[in-house]
């Protein structure tokens, strides 16, 4: 049976058995921001000296008067955003995730979240797949930092196509938002027709043996891992959760009730991150055996993105192995 037959037809995913296309997730953000700017005059953007690498240049070229270069000053970046939002603007403020929200968390907390201003924080180059830049630039703690803040919504798109949709959705959401982007080219698994709604999780492929719940760059890897597992006789259900906060508890619980075994996968610290968020939902509502895949209380290091993803066992092969050893453990 073709792997594609198991897929949720309603989601219009790409054909996984054909060669996949790759594109950095941040490219989709850049397109989405420009679109949002065309739809809504109040959308503005500011960047901390990383305009091209966070892909804000598309917006800047289209709307030079609505783009502000802040320089290497991430505290100013987000706080200025809260001021713009006070005048009915919808500011997207971008940098690398290691610096924003890495350096300016308190300003985000006080002037954006407690002050409840709809600033859109764009953290690019998250995860170990940043590669050669090394640990300083490989942000792994951003999910934990952002999801703990009241009023804040947190997104991690699976691919560039979804990033574009999330960016548009953010531009009409009245709350503070954080979106996590990756540097490296990531497999495109969704299409224009694939739905996205804030707070909605999606069952990418149905299965009864185990639930693989993934976010961001790991959703494509989870999908590929499910194919490898299928060949080993394991019928995995892949749940993609592009909104980390608010989490789609219903979809998580429904899948867990079916499979009674859950693996979470994220390119981030498991402590306090996405896996922790899923664990909170399960332990309070329907405890099942679970394991969180991701980075375990350590920093990344230099290397090629592929090397690092393999080293941390977050490629499809690594995920498959970790799932198999989890299943053998009880």
């Amino acid at each position, binding site marked *: 049976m073709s792997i594609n037959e198991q897929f949720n037809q309603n989601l219009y995913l790409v054909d996984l058995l054909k060669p996949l296309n790759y594109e950095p997730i941040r490219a989709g953000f850049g397109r989405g921001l420009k679109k949002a700017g065309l739809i809504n005059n109040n959308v*503005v953007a500011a960047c901390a000296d990383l305009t091209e690498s966070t892909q804000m240049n598309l917006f800047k070229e289209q709307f030079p*008067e*609505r783009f*502000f270069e*802040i*320089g290497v*000053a991430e*505290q*100013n970046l987000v*706080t*200025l*955003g*809260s*001021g*713009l*939002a*006070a*005048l*009915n*603007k919808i*500011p997207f403020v971008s940098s690398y995730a290691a610096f924003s929200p890495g350096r300016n968390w*308190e*300003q985000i907390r*006080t*002037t954006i979240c*407690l*002050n*409840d201003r709809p600033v859109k924080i764009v953290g690019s180059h998250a995860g170990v797949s940043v590669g050669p830049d090394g640990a300083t630039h490989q942000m792994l703690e951003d999910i934990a930092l952002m999801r703990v803040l009241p009023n804040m919504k947190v997104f991690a798109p699976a691919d560039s196509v979804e990033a574009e949709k999330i960016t548009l959705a953010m531009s009409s959401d009245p709350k503070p938002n954080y979106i996590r982007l990756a540097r490296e080219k990531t497999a495109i698994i969704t299409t224009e027709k694939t739905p996205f709604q804030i707070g909605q999780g999606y069952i990418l492929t149905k299965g009864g043996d185990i639930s693989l719940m993934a976010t961001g760059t790991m959703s494509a890897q989870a999908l590929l891992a499910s194919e490898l597992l299928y060949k080993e006789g394991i019928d995995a259900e892949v749940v993609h959760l592009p909104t980390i906060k608010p989490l789609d508890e219903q979809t998580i619980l429904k899948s867990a009730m079916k499979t009674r075994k859950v693996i979470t996968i994220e390119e981030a610290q498991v402590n306090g991150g996405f896996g922790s968020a899923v664990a909170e939902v399960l332990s309070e509502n329907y405890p099942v055996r679970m394991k969180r895949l991701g980075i375990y209380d350590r920093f990344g290091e230099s290397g090629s993105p592929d090397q690092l993803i393999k080293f941390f066992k977050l490629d499809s092969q690594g995920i498959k192995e970790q799932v198999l050893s989890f299943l053998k453990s009880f």
Partner: protein
Amino acid sequence: MTKYSIEQLELIATRIREDIIDMLLHAGSGHSAGPLGLADIFTVLYFDILNHDPKNPDWEERDILLLSNGHCVPVRYAAMAEAGYFKKEELKTLRQFGSRLQGHPERLRLPGLENTSGPLGCGLSQAAGMALGLRLNKMNGRRIYVVMGDGEIDEGNIWEAAMLIPKYKLNSITAILDRNNIQIDGPTEEVMPLEELRRKWESFNWHVIEIDGNNIEAIIDALNMAQTIVEKPVIIIAHTIPGKGVDFMEKDFRWHGIPPNSEQAKLALKELRTLGGKIKSEHQ
């Protein structure tokens, strides 16, 4: 807006000081020195300079006043009550459970506040964002005032904004720096030397006006002059006396972060009630 005479404004400033002492006594915690030192500046802002409407705090043409050093908010609450934003009785709820008058100001709780502050160093950046917003919205008549503390400018965030504001020529902003020379751990020049302050701001491309921040007339003049200077953003370095009006609090950094007890409050109020004459004589 009613124009008040200097004498009337001085009386208002004294009432604001009395209210600050009362509020802090009831609250049992809070900052004394900063708010007392800022009373004259807040009097001038609320009763002479700001284009505002206490009955319609969200009025779309209002000027924006940002208090960056949120711990000085008792002076803002007292000035707002005096201006009619809310009844004076409410001042006694400062820092109490359920009060709209939070220990540090929260915009969402009290109409008329423009920002949520307390963690220091953010006001100038917020002013910058708002000034860009005003420009994009073509709201050219509105002005932004941001009050900062001197200890506060230890924060790097302030200097990030200080660089950006001249870059974008955001001359709708007037910054007011409360130069009272104290912070929690002691005199500013011991904790973290700030001088030469004027040259620092000038080198960041700001126009600097230095005044006696407890002189009502000087404050009015400086704020009016600031509106006429369009080449550069303006910062008014206002030299104030921390604890101004209460002899035993004046210039003593230990009063930065504590309220008076009831005996001290009685003494303070007694002094303040005779202050009207005192200020006058100083100016004569």
